[in-house]
């Protein structure tokens, strides 16, 4: 076990691991960002302000903002030192509020600002800028410079995802260390020296890696901004909702930035057990799928109109869709029993919906069940091969391999299929032709997909950002999400639809009015 030592920071005593530095130790015990819960670090004042230090990067020690007075014991003389690189020791006393400390911080802030363009009114970082915040809390309120400010490059296109403003850069080198230590790609460096120092990419080497947008998160100022979010929205209009990324089974925690009932961005939300402080670019940009044009917004029922050669999927009301399912399944159940029905779950559904699906299938007595998941690239950092947030949750509920189900379908033993999600054809064991002969295919999906081609009834379901639910990641961690945006009125949870279908089929324990409906009647429009 690691040795523990006691340190005292501004009259509060902490017991911390030996071998850590003051900032690390305070971060370990959750004291560095006292109001971290529910807020991004950018929104909360750190107990000890800092720029270059970051919990997931090596110690740099260059910004000098985290200077504090340390004493080896209560009676030792105070010494000004940087908290990020001062090792903790038994009895160490840290003063973060003395006049000396305030003066040192003020000095750093004044010097950081003498060459800063002070273009906050047109800077995208305004509102979540640590330079701006600390200038107010620790800085000076007037400039003593007579000299012109340093000129440098503006709007530098660093690569596919990031735009750089060299004048705003405070040279904390977090981004440099990120690219060296986390992604190992090393695209960024600080070139030249003294007050000519500038952050740059190497000539003809763009900043282009799978995690590049994290540099904008860790940039404490408006120097590095993402092309995706740049100038899209003033951050003070954003509401932050805790969510997870649904791109893969890692389930990276995100802050969902919401405005005008639309997701404006994902930012990684720190969870040391899941994603640390990072997320991949693909996952970060995956929020675009929430409001994409191919979202399903109404129920669809396949009907043949007069003059048509074949039946077509066309919009239908909720009641029509539920009735259509019942009208197809009831005769099949009565004639052949549940053995000809199969249920396939999805890694995109929440634990709650998966449990509802399982209950529905159990009550029907359907035992041909499986899980369809898409697989793709993975890496050593965060990206997992399973492309769906809740494969582990589906397995835990009882949905196993797809192969036995696919075999039964191909063998002709199945006449009706109820399927969640759009990964039905992902592993190649099933395709539209294999399903063409089925009497009934009922699909639940967020987006239009090839499954539609064989579906008879399609129900539009909610995205993870649109519900209060939970997802289980690949490590078995159950992660709650909160509803960030409200989808269209006909978009509902799988469980809600299944409840209605169960009731229409007259299944035991299924009521006509669902809890969700009652709740939405009571509180609609609140969000």
């Amino acid at each position: 076990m690691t040795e523990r030592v006691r340190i005292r920071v501004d009259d509060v005593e902490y017991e911390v691991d030996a071998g850590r530095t003051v900032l690390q130790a305070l971060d370990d015990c959750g004291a560095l960002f006292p109001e971290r819960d529910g807020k991004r670090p950018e929104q909360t004042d750190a107990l000890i302000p800092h720029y270059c230090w970051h919990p997931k990067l090596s110690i740099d020690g260059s910004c000098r903002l985290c200077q504090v007075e340390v004493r080896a014991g209560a009676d030792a003389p105070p010494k000004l030192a940087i908290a990020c690189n001062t090792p903790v020791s038994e009895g160490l006393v840290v003063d973060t509020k003395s006049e000396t400390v305030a003066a040192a911080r003020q000095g750093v802030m004044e010097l950081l600002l003498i060459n800063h363009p002070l273009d906050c009114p047109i800077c995208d970082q305004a509102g979540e800028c640590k330079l701006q915040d600390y200038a107010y809390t620790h800085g000076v309120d007037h400039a003593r410079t007579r000299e012109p400010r340093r000129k440098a490059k503006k709007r530098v296109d660093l690569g596919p995802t990031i735009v750089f403003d060299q004048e705003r850069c405070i040279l904390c080198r977090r981004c440099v260390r990120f690219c060296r230590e986390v992604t190992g790609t090393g695209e960024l460096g600080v070139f030249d020296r003294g007050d000519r120092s500038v952050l740059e990419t190497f000539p003809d080497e763009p900043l282009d890696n799978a995690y590049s947008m994290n540099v904008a998160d860790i940039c404490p100022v408006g120097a590095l901004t993402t092309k995706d979010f740049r100038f899209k929205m003033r951050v003070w209009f954003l509401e932050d909702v805790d969510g997870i990324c649904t791109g893969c089974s890692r389930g990276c925690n995100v802050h969902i930035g919401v405005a005008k009932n639309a997701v404006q961005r994902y930012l990684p939300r720190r969870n040391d057990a899941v994603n640390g402080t990072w997320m991949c670019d693909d996952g970060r940009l995956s929020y675009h799928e929430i409001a994409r044009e191919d979202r399903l917004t109404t129920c669809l029922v396949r009907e043949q109109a007069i003059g048509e050669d074949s039946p077509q999927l066309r919009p239908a009301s909720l009641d029509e869709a539920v009735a259509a399912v019942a009208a197809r399944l009831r005769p099949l159940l009565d004639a052949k029993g549940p053995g000809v029905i199969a249920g396939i779950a999805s890694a995109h559904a929440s634990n709650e919906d998966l449990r509802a699906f399982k209950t529905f299938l159990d009550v029907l007595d359907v035992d041909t069940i499986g899980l369809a998941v898409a697989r793709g690239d993975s890496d050593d950092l965060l990206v997992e091969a399973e492309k769906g947030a809740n494969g582990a949750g589906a397995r835990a509920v009882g949905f196993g391999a797809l192969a036995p189900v696919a075999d039964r379908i191909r063998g002709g033993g199945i006449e009706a299929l109820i399927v969640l999600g759009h990964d039905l054809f992902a592993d190649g064991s099933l395709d539209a032709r294999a399903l063409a002969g089925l009497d009934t295919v009922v699909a639940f999906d967020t987006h239009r997909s090839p499954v539609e081609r064989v579906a008879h009834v399609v129900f539009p379901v909610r995205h993870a950002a649109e519900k209060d639910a939970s997802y289980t990641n690949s490590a078995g961690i159950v992660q709650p999400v909160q509803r960030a945006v409200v989808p269209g009125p006909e978009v509902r949870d799988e469980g809600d639809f299944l409840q209605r279908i169960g009731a229409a089929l007259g299944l035991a324990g299924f009521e006509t009015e669902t809890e969700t409906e009652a709740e939405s009647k009571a509180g609609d429009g609140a969000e």
Partner: protein
Amino acid sequence: MQKVPFTTGYLTAHCGDDAYGTLDGYKAEGGYETARRVLKKGTPEDLIETLKASGLQGRGGASFIAGQKWSFMPGAEDDTGPRYLVCNADESEPGSFKDRLLLERAPHLLLEGILLAAFAIRAEKTFLYVRGEYGEAIRVLTRAIEEARAGKVLGPRALGSRFAHDVVLVRGAGAYICGEETGLLESLEGKKGQPRKKPPYPAENGVFGRPTTVNNVETLCHVPHIVEKGADWFRGIGTAESPGNTLFGVSGHVVRPGLYELPLGTPLDEIVFEHAGGVAGGRKLKAVIPGGLSMAVLPAGQVDVPMANEFLRERQTALGTGGIIVMDDTTCMVRVACIITHFFREESCGQCTQCREGTGWMNRIVSRIERGEGRFEDLALLKDVCAKMEGKTICAFADAAAWPVQGLLRHFPQDFQSHVTHGQCPYPGSFVLA
């Protein structure tokens, strides 16, 4: 080498002739006998004790007790891998040119010092990091190292002992900051010369992640003499707190600029007026920078001070590298400030906020005053910027940039005020800025 006048002592005894130029010449003067004896029969512990007892202060500028520095290295019980000695020959302090003489004229004295120091800290290899502009020194040292290898002074059985040692010469590339010991280590590893934060200290985690001691050229050149003649002998020279001789490099407005090997504690006025022949052209002394550009200036009235830290400290300056820069009464102290701040602005590595921004700001303020665009409040502003830089950064560079400005403001405020009042420089005859 260009002939510079110098007075000799034990360090520079043969720097005026060619006796130390070759391995044979050095051996003929008894060279390497001390190292041979210690490497064969001595112990690292005894050697460190001798050095500690001698009180030798490092001659690289910080005056840290050399024996103490050695003692920070892990002892014999640490056998996790190699450890290194680094000889800092990146002499880059403006006003300082003492190491150059030793490098060019006494290479084997340095190599003997290296062998002893390496033995004391159990280093298997020394990196000799030489200022890139020192072409002659590099030529001389390269030949001396080859001679020493061929003569089995270096190698798997150095001087016939069981101690293995080799010296690798590395050329610097012209950055002042690479003379700072951890900036040097970064440069040595092939990286940008930026000082490292401490901890870890070099003795724990130095070059290539291994325990390392960095010693200055002159420091190492004292070692063979101390070991040969004893700590008491060394203590008998200089002052009680600052023993031994040192090389004072005198430059500027003097009759005989040059190197003078004198005991520490020799009065500054004696060095300037007697050894260096006084102010040139019959003009009056105005100011002296006692220890290289980064030390605070002393006005003419305060040069009656013994050149040792315990005395210089009382006058708010320090010995530094012993580079004495003499300025006569035609010198404009604002121009001096311009040159000094320009130098430090150019040479700041740019890591730490205060140094990166402060050096530039100071230079811009001082240049504005020199142009006649200054304000009276600029004097207080300059002092404040100095205070914001001093003692708050990774290395001592920011201190080195702040101290001389503080000194000029302390002793010559009238020069600054006069620029502000008259809107121009009152010293038309002063040297011209490049």
